[in-house]
């Protein structure tokens, strides 16, 4: 565990459930696409108010679990659920569940609040009241052991496996050694690496879980004939999914894997965890495993990650709601071209300017600054992309992790 005498600390926000956040947000959650316009308008131009939602009208347990995990995220202090009124997902149930976590939460239905304009006005009033309540959130010392960090990679090129992901892997080792929690995902980018993956298991039980998750991912990719590689990956010099996978796996660092999380679950103890976002076998196969980067990032945030790292060799301009996204590239040209959007250049390890350890230490300092309140670049630019699709995963059991 971390030693408080040597561990750096910063100020975070203490939630009623004892968890600690690095932001103090009001979250507006819409429960169907029909309510998205009103929900987005409620949150627009309001500092500290983020908006997420699920477009589907029909039942999807996966999406509801995911939204409930996001609504009780440590960076979220209060929630307004906005529904149209006839969809399956119940805004009032979301608010009720969030209130049980000790957070203030309200719900409203557009069909009952007088249409677009008056619903937006009512929503803005509720959000302002919640913001006033959140001003009194207790501040508390935080250290690395209080942090969960997620990592996603997207728009990979050859530098991702040589610099971007290895630097994150090194930083992940430092985080885990300091008593923190690190979550990586994209099991569909571990193709061909089963033996290497299983060697990293903390124990036999975890080895079994990793093996099952791996086999499921391969079966699914074969069945939908979709492997997690895009034209830009190939243009960037990656030839096969195996090659991309080796680069992607480097972001996990070298510490033992403590277990496999399903979407909506959170780690039950610190250390390194693998998030499995691949659909489970179901009478109806739907939901690509990795439809875009924003989906994976939202899944990582749902584990309780207060900050997410995004490694992109080719470059990207996305951000995320709820947890600040820190964008890292191992490609110095990409960094120069997209300087407004990229937070960190790990390409210095390829030019020999910095060692892997030096670059990882620099990244750790950046993470600490963002954890202390400094906005990451996408956060400052106002990027809040998210994606919550229909998907099926079996209901997680309490024995694997804490049910969110």
């Amino acid at each position: 565990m971390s030693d408080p005498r040597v561990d750096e600390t910063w100020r975070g926000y203490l939630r009623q459930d004892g968890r600690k956040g690095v932001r103090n947000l009001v979250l507006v959650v819409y429960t169907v696409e029909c309510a998205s316009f009103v929900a987005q308008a409620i949150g627009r131009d309001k500092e500290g108010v983020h908006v997420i939602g699920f477009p589907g009208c029909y039942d999807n347990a996966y999406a509801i679990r995911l939204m409930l995990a996001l609504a009780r995220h440590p960076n979220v202090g209060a929630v307004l659920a906005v529904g149209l009124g006839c969809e399956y997902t119940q805004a009032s149930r979301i608010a009720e569940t969030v209130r049980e976590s000790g957070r203030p939460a309200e719900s409203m239905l557009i069909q009952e609040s007088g249409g677009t304009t008056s619903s937006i006005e009512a929503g803005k009033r509720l959000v302002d009241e919640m913001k006033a309540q959140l001003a009194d959130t207790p501040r508390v010392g935080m250290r690395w052991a209080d942090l969960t960090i997620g990592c996603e990679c997207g728009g990979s090129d050859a530098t991702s496996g040589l610099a971007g992901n290895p630097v994150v892997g090194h930083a992940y080792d430092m985080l885990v050694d300091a008593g923190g929690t690190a979550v990586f995902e994209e099991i569909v980018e571990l193709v061909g690496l089963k033996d290497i993956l299983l060697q990293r298991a903390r124990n036999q039980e975890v080895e079994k879980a990793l093996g099952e998750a791996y086999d499921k991912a391969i079966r699914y990719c074969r069945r939908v004939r979709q492997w997690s590689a895009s034209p830009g990956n190939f243009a960037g010099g990656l030839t096969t999914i195996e090659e991309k996978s080796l680069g992607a796996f480097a972001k996990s660092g070298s510490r033992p894997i403590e277990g496999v999380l399903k979407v909506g679950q959170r780690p039950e103890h610190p250390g390194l965890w693998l998030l499995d976002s691949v659909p489970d076998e179901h009478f109806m196969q739907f939901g690509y495993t990795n439809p875009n980067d924003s989906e994976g990032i939202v899944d990582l945030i749902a584990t309780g990650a207060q900050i997410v790292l995004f490694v992109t060799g080719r470059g990207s301009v996305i951000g995320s709601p709820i947890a600040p996204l820190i964008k890292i590239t191992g490609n110095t040209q990409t960094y120069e071209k997209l300087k407004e959007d990229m937070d960190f250049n790990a390409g210095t390890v390829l030019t020999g300017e910095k060692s892997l350890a030096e670059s990882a230490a620099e990244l750790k300092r950046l993470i600490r600054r963002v954890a202390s309140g400094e906005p990451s670049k996408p956060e400052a630019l106002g990027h809040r992309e998210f994606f919550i699709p229909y998907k099926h995963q079996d209901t997680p059991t309490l024995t694997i992790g804490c049910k969110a």
Partner: protein
Amino acid sequence: MPAEAFAIDPADNVATALGDIEPGAVSVLGVSPAAPMESIDSIRAGHKLALCDIGVGQRVIKYGVAIGLATRPIPRGGWVHLHNLASQYDEASSALDLDTGAPPAEDHYV
């Protein structure tokens, strides 16, 4: 200064171009001792250079792990990509455009 490529693991039979490589001298950096060699192709930054002759069906190794099998004989110093290396899992990628990685036009756009 000769062009540079980077080999990650001693078992690797390919190295990654650190900048654009033209036919001619290349120094190979990384874990293997910097062996000077000749590139026989133009190879863009991030793409792979064969460090030895690789026969059809042989494993192409990067990071010390097989990233696929050679589908054509690959000479030492040659460019290794979709035209001569195929995944053991993903059957579709060999049909992609060699330069852009885009799927064949007849796929969806007709």
